[in-house]
């Protein structure tokens, strides 16, 4: 029996939209619970953003070398730290000398923002961006800080932000996962599937992973998606036998809604495995588009592909997309390693913003660029060879930016002290950021709750204030 897809769509975008057709709702209407947990739902109030692209820079990008210009740090670089460091939140052995910024700064954009010269493409986009310079978090340790950012808790196992959002809003395309994670760090030092897990929310809200941080994304596949040893027709033939046996079971031992759900779920999975690869195939895009993202260039190919996939997924109606770039933990040789990291993402990042805007997607997509914390103004090599110098973790401040739906453009919120060591004004804690992201999606962070083991849980636990200053 041949498998048939809907009649050929007229254009690519039409095709992507067609994936969101009637099938999903049909399949799930029949499911045991009688209600599709991923059906698109109205939020608490009219949303600004319909979906999120989180560009996750794991490791902690250095704010004073990229976006937070500190002339005094430059002037006093190499000198003794002139203030008392008594924060319990950092490792104390590395605080004797100041390390100057490793790049020069210049004013860019109509807003005249000071930015280092490490990301020239992004510099052309500053008028689109909303900067938060007073980000703060609780811990200087990667695992704790990452988990706080991704799940709202560093101590306990909790659902991730993407899971909360699909739980709150459902999805616009039932033939694709609602929550996609591209190339996350999986294990090892600071990776963990907990960062995109559903926690105690229903399993359907779990992030679906494509590849992992160590594998170039062009060689990555979603787990168990398809069987390369069989043609699609043979795979269908195999599935037909499974389904025939399922129906036989229904006939001989009595119809059961769970088995009916199993039958429907098999069909959905099959559609997914036939159609998802299409969405992930960036070679379906024009050469000009691929060039825009730096695809084909050695330094930017990998991140460029991830960004272009993210745009294709956003366009197809995926609710929450996370793109990971790791390696931002620049403890040593920051002069060269940070440069490399920045160059690797610069062109793709600018390309993504350009492309989203050109397609009108930036109007209802929230783009977030951030790491889990910032870095210290101190020289971790303690006066050793400057070429080996690097910076340690700093939870007291970092810089991130957002773009797109509902946030101000060319706007800076928050300020740090003269060394970018601590936020002094416009502090935004991770819980506040969570509250703000949910707000942009039309969700009240105090009302987005899930009852588990006798208690109502929230992404923001008992914290969080919406950062109204950055909203349009």
């Amino acid at each position: 029996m041949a498998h048939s897809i809907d009649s050929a769509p007229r254009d690519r975008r039409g095709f992507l939209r067609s994936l969101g057709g009637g099938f999903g709702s049909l399949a799930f209407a029949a499911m045991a619970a009688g209600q599709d947990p991923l059906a698109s739902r109205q939020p608490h109030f009219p949303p600004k953003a319909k979906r999120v692209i989180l560009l996750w820079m794991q490791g902690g990008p250095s704010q004073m070398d990229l976006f937070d210009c500190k002339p005094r740090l430059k002037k006093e670089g190499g000198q003794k730290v002139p203030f008392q460091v008594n924060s319990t939140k950092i490792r104390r052995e590395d605080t004797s000398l100041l390390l100057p910024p490793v790049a020069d700064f210049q004013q860019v954009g109509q807003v005249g923002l000071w930015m280092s010269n490490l990301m020239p493409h992004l510099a052309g986009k500053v008028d689109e961006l909303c900067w938060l310079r007073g980000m703060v978090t609780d811990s200087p340790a990667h695992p704790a800080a990452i988990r706080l950012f991704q799940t709202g808790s560093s101590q306990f196992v909790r659902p991730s932000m993407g899971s909360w959002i699909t739980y709150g809003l459902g999805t616009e395309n039932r033939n694709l996962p609602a929550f996609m994670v591209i190339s996350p760090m999986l294990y090892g030092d600071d990776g963990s599937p907990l960062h995109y897990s559903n926690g105690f929310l229903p399993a359907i809200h779990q992030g679906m992973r494509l590849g992992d941080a160590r594998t170039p994304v062009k060689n990555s596949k979603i787990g168990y998606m398809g069987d390369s040893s069989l043609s699609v027709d043979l795979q269908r033939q195999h599935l037909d036998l499974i389904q025939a046996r399922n129906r036989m079971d229904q006939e001989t031992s009595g119809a059961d809604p769970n088995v009916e759900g199993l039958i429907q779920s098999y069909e959905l999975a099959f559609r997914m495995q036939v159609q998802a690869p299409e969405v992930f195939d960036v070679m379906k895009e024009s050469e000009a588009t691929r060039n825009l993202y730096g695809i084909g260039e050695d330094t930017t190919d990998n991140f460029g592909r991830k960004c272009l996939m993210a745009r294709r997924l956003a366009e197809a109606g995926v609710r929450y997309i996370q793109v990971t770039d790791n390696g931002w933990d620049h403890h040593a040789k920051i002069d060269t390693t940070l440069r490399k990291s920045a160059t690797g993402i610069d062109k793709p990042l600018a390309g993504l913003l350009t492309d989203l805007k050109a397609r009108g997607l930036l109007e209802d997509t929230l783009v977030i660029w951030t790491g889990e914390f910032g870095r210290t103004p101190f020289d971790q090599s303690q006066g050793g060879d400057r070429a080996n110098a690097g910076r340690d973790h700093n939870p007291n401040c970092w810089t991130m930016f957002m773009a797109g739906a509902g946030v101000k453009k060319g706007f800076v919120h928050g300020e740090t002290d003269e060394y970018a060591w601590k936020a002094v004004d416009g502090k935004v804690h991770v819980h506040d950021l969570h509250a703000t992201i949910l707000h942009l999606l039309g969700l009240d962070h105090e009302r987005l709750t899930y009852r588990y083991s006798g208690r109502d849980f929230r992404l923001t636990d008992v914290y969080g204030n919406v950062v109204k200053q950055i909203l349009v």
Partner: protein
Amino acid sequence: MVRRQFEAYLDGRSVAGMPEGENVSACNFEPSWTQSLNSRKIRLDSPSPACVTKALAALTRPSALTRLIFVPFPRALPLALFVLTIPPSPAQPDGKADFFEAKVRPVLLARCSSCHGDKVQMSQKQFTTRDGMHQSGAVVPGDPAASSLIQAVRYAAKVKMPPSAKLADAEIEALEKWVRDGAVWPDSTAAPSTSNAVGHWSLQPVRQPPPPAVKDGSWPRTPIDRFILARLESKKLSPAADADRYTLLRRLTLDLTGLLPTPAELTQYVEDASPNAMETVVDRLLASPAFGERWGRHWLDITYWADTTGVGRRIPLPEAWRYRDYVIRSYAADKPYDQFLREQIAGPAAKKSKEGELDQDTLAATGFLVLGPWAWFSYDKVQMRFDIADQQVDLIGRSVLGLTLGCARCHDHKFDPVTNHDYYALAGIFLSTKTTSRTNAEGGLNLTRFAENPALARNHADALAAWEKHLAQVEADDAVFKKEQEAVNKRIKELKSDPVALKAAQDELAALKKKTEFAGDRQILAFTKYNKPRWPEAYAAEEMEFPEDARVASRGDAHQLGEVVPRGVLSGVSTGQPAAEMNPNSSGRKELADWLTRPSHPLTARVYVNRLWQHLFGRGIVATTDNFGTRGEQPTHPELLDHLATRFVEQGWSTKKLIREIVLSRVYQLSSRPNPRNDEIDAGNEMLWRSNRRRLEVEAIRDSILQVSGRLDLTGGGPSLPLTAQNVHTIAPFFLEDDSRIEPHVKYRRTVYQPIMRNSQMDDVDILNVFDFKDPDQVVGTRSATTVPSQMLYLMNSPFLKEEARRLAEATKALADPARVAKIILGTLSRPSTQRDLDQARQFVSDFQAAYAKQAAAGNSPAADPNVEAWARYCHAVFASSEFLYRR
């Protein structure tokens, strides 16, 4: 200024070399010291009253931890024990307390207390106590406009507070609302508000209801059946027919052992004409080792057990298997539940061997309390210590009592009779229990050594000698390598101008590296040192040297402590006997265990028998197995639950005896066939008019596939973590890498013996990540059985199913089609095959084989034998279909 060295005794141990006045950051504290700090009870060897005063002043500060001053240490002076308490404030019960605790107190503590707190009171204003607030005159209850506090935080008056940065709007609004509503400051020492739920059914004494009268006296086989039938008759439901013997044996074997009946067992049972054929089978299954494995895993589901610790990183716990094996052994031996609980909570002290030594078999029992998802990376060890005690309280609550005690960490439980005081009474017991060790080296858990004995000593000495020899070799190799590396490095520096020679030297260096490193941070030498043979140890709880009571922590924040609460048990749960007396010189775990296992306890037996019932029927008599509070579900058969609880205690808390009674009932043996008439009345089958069809747990899916394919290895017990050089990442604390593979000798064992990680399971047992395996960090009395597309992708495409299906196809290759289908169907589905099965198989094999041959001819895929491939796919489809995945 010359800093003098001081010495202090904390927790009975000398802490040497702390300079006076040093700011000690939280991360420098070992958990066991902070255990003392946490309750502000500390033992100091002090030279003079002045020094003591100074130390105490430091300790009573809210953030004493960062400014602890150690006092001089003259050994001549006697030890003194200081206990600090803060006097309780006057009672002030009020309905607005929750708002204050949730929205107001946190703001005052976080934003005001550094200048207007317990230590410093600028402008003579203190905002951290009720009296202080009211004496300050800063609030006029009911009138925000007249309250200087509100004007200050609004930045509306001359005085703008806090001066550093204005409060968030929401915070200001909260303060204003609080003042407007009367500025109520509740008193956490107020009398417990247990009026909530004292009449709740689960807290009433267990009764002994007589089995009810029924109309159809011929139907019931056991008293259990009378309880069920009475409800069915009252609802006008008719019970389904009895299940056929094939279905019944499959159900029983899966429920009791998690495996499938073998063809021989099926034949034997189906042909057994004796009246007690069922009893014979039940007794065989209860006695099989597989019973302990299946039911031990059920118990592990309601613990935090796993082979690793840490959140995020996989820090191996090489001895954690001992607790797993202890649980399995206990179930296999039908250890009385009261004894099982006492061993796990109070520890081996509850049972000593004749020689007075610790019983080695039960040494690992308190792994129940010790093994957990502790956040070893936490820089705030005080909070961590506190959070561990919190999770232990919650563990006892959910797994043993069926209560959500965690809610009472911050306030009296809103729905159940558990007060904030009760919570801290229990927390004190666990704060007085040693769970963690002083270092992170072993994942930071407390280890207890096995007692000396000659055989152990001999084995250990042999292993140590072999290891030392091996280490010497590795060290020698490493020294050679280092020397060579140095030489090459030196050459590289000199060769900078000669690219060809430089390249050659660099290649040489790379080759050298391979000799002692695997990759990245994984170094042979470091790993060899890590692998030093260990004297047998178990993760076990021990008593703290100085047991102490806990202090109420505001909103669970270990740095915001209130009054002391004496250790004790839940005041709102009555056993009809006097409350447990705590021994002041011990943690209180023994008293807690004794209280929990009182035969008259209203919850312990009910919660446990309900779990057994759930595992046999798919749904508990109380559906919320971990919540017997007012927020849980009502029992569908309250009298039956009490009947079972009574029988359970009467029969010496025997798990096997009760399971035997249940499975010999008629209601357990019903068919699962639906009935439209009954469906109209009770579609959810709450009254149990038929058997529930339910998805197998992931362990049963994996184990039975391996069983049918002939690959299941029934060896059990012992370590299973793959602590191999390739897997272990050698940065302290050592952790497991992602590419870890399960070692060949473990890989095909039953799932309960596979290494269990905390974040996600290893690639070789990826099926656990797909089919609702229990999250090791949570108490999960009732697993979910989801149906999501990722499961179907796994069933269609995973190498595991493909490989095992192929093995089954190969194993049946010699048989003619009818015999082949009969064998496959009997083995996997535990029933004789039908003509329809045979026709379907033949049709599929013929179609698929042809299409496959065509694909192979077109060169589109590696050519396997089309016939073998087709039969493999047939077996695969049987595994992937509902009849296999569900138990009827």
